[in-house]
């Protein structure tokens, strides 16, 4: 399989940002996935030679700016999540589909949890259970990414 073009990576990032900026209605906001997070996690596992922690951090910063939340909040959680993905990147590409789902689900959950922690430190209140729902829609989006850009590429047998 050919290496992914850098322009493809940038383009998906742009599309993710546009979806992030899409005006979600109040019911949609409960289930809307973190587009940029899913896209960046996909690329950091699929193409670590293009996407590094810095890019993921930058994507988080864009999310911060678009949500108007405290600058650096999403960036921090995105960077930590990306790190957790990256340290196991060599192993993850060898996982089968279900193992990968489980790990990715864990990553998305970690990101949500970190955001929740940061918000609680800032004096937020504990949201109800629907707060966890976007993790599932993240997973659906992850599946779409797999369909569009292919399964994670395993290294060839030497």
């Amino acid at each position: 399989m050919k290496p992914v073009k850098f322009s493809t990576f940038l383009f998906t990032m742009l599309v993710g940002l546009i979806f992030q900026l899409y005006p979600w209605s109040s019911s949609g906001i409960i289930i809307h996935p973190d587009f940029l997070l899913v896209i960046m996690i996909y690329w950091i596992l699929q193409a670590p030679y293009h996407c590094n922690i810095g890019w993921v951090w930058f994507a988080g910063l864009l999310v911060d700016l678009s949500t108007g939340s405290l600058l650096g909040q999403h960036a921090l959680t995105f960077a930590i999540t990306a790190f957790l993905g990256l340290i196991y990147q060599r192993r993850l590409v060898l996982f089968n589909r279900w193992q990968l789902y489980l790990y990715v689900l864990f990553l998305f959950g970690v990101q949500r949890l970190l955001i929740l922690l940061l918000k609680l430190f800032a004096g937020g209140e504990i949201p109800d259970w629907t707060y966890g729902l976007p993790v599932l829609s993240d997973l659906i989006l992850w599946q779409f990414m797999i369909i569009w850009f292919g399964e994670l590429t395993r290294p060839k047998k030497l």
Partner: protein
Amino acid sequence: MLKGIHQQLDPQESPAFFIQGPKPFSRLMFFCALSLVMMAVDARFDYLGQVRQWFSTALHPLEVVASAPNEWARNIHTYFTSHNQLIQDNFKLKQQALIDHAALQRLATVDAENAHLRTLLAGDAPIIPQATLGEVMHMGRDPFSNIITLNRGSHHHITPGQAVVDEQGVVGQITRVYPFTSEVTLITDKKLSIPIQIERNQLRAIAFGEGKRNTLDIPYLPTSVDIKVGDKLVTSGIDGVYPAGLAVAVVTQIKQSQDSPFAKIISRPIAGVNNHKHVLILQVPDSPAINPSSESRAVLPRNNAQHLDQSVVDVLQKNNAAVDPHPVTETPVLEGTNPDNAASPITPENTPTPAAPEHP
């Protein structure tokens, strides 16, 4: 041997740490530190406001692209709205206009009367705020804060702190302004409080938002306070941000617990805080205009009363001009009466206002 193998690999297959420059962990540490610093700076200082503005301006085209499908859908929906529906709406609106006209006719009279009575009490002239119409672009993307975004920004002379109302009552306050958009924090947000007054008995209090429950809380009122379920809360106007008398909320629940000296009073916002399309952004009344008069009133009540008297005469004339088909035009006569007023203390009998219409 090992080196040779690695040279054969194409880039995507070489281990991440060979082409990544710094190790992931040091990268992570660097970016964590950076974001922590940014968060601290953003929370404590104002330096990043400008950065935010630039980014927001840069993101604006993307935002337009992102909201385009919604816009199209709405336009298509409007296009196919049935003829019948339009006729019905038109009929309803005409009826409403008739009712409003009747009320407006009375309003002019009542305004004049109010202005007159305020003069007698040496009060300030009523503040009639200017307003800008804004359209709600989207709800906030952050589930933790109750924020809506409007399509008016600093290019339309919106400033932070302006009150936002809809046709039923107070919606919130502008908290952040971008060049083309602005963020409104709803009154139900935890960070926002609003000075209110109970319409029935004029009791003043402050209502705080309760966050995700979409209610308002009025803390620090004793259990014996005279509040009933169903009482309407209106703005008291003492903050100088919200004009007095705008509807805010209706009391829905009063809880009294044994171990607290305060009652727990829950109220529900009257304005469709979560479901409106158009809102009005009110200008903040000029505080410098209010402060000097209140200061001078404290020191020299007489002078101030005369000063106000002239201003109220102007207001009255304006109102008369609006209401009367034959407006009063001789201001020189009124100015001539002013020195008399300056010499003699103001009493209801020698205010020039009743005399004004009698000079043809």
